């Protein structure tokens, strides 16, 4: 019940959540390009991509229209 209320209140901040999702998408997309440009190593690239993916999947379902 409390969890549902928390999710409902979080879901109310749609624009903020969309912004977080967009940042998460950038965090997924940018590391491979930085790796290609030899700015980061492979481990760092994988780590940042995983963080971006987790945030994307945690946040996006809260605002994406069903």
């Amino acid at each position, binding site marked *: 019940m409390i969890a549902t209320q928390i999710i409902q209140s979080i879901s109310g901040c749609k624009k903020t959540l969309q912004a977080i999702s967009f940042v998460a*998408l950038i965090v*997924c997309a940018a590391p491979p390009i930085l*790796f290609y440009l030899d700015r980061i190593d492979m481990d760092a*690239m*994988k780590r940042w991509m995983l963080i971006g993916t987790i945030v994307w999947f945690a946040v996006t379902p809260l605002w994406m229209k069903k």
Partner: protein
Amino acid sequence: MVVVFLSFGVIALPQLGVTSLSDFWTVANERIWTGGEPLPGRVKFTFWHVLFFAWFCNMAMHIGMSDLTIFRYAKKSWYSVATAAGMYLGHFMAWISASLLYALQLHRDPTMTDVLPGPMAFGAAGLVGVICVVIAGWTTANPTIYRAGLAFQAIAPSTSRVKVTLFAGGLATLAGMFPAIAMQLLDFVALYGLVLMPMGAVIFIDFWLMRRLGLRDNYAEWKRISFNWAAGLAWILTLLICLGLVAFGGLQIFFASLPGWFIAAALYIVLSKWYQRNDFETASQEATP
């Protein structure tokens, strides 16, 4: 998922030796798309195989009209362009990225010729790659299992759709656990696309052309009959012709579907003219505004 598929390609390129645009063509010819002999028992895929298969590997859904099971819920007709996103991103970009991953695997270990999506994706992007492969499989399988559930329910209408869908999913999962079955997917997809393709042609012709040709559309419903022989024969005869061309004409199954669609369409029109010969006059009168 799209971002991760694109990333696979971007990650593979520097490891294959592409550090600038000028390197690309040389590396592409020498290390990525080098041609060569196929694995034992496999068909050699040329550019034309890839082109045809990219268009037709989901033929059962798009040309065979299985998509209609999902699009019956669409609120607007233009939602059907969603299939194009799957086609162009899934069949072109993802395939190119997959070929880069495989080239990278061979570059690292030339003896490692197994095609294992999970390990290849993990090697390129770590856990994110594995998540992408799992979700890609899941999202591809979901609508297909749903369709299979509907088909099972059509055979046994009294059964629960949830139960038959779970059964279909369980059966497919079990089959997918055996590499002997899973690794035959390419040929199987070509075959089941071929099996459904004629019915897609029948639906297309029935919806768009029958009235223009002075024939009755939705004939079985209008006539209150349970079997439309024109549709049934168009389906069976097209399959026999296509399979005959594959078995005896030397045509590879990947190339049979394109001519097959036109054969099915022509057969359905000709057979409908014959089948509806007694109703022809009535139908043409009603079609005239």
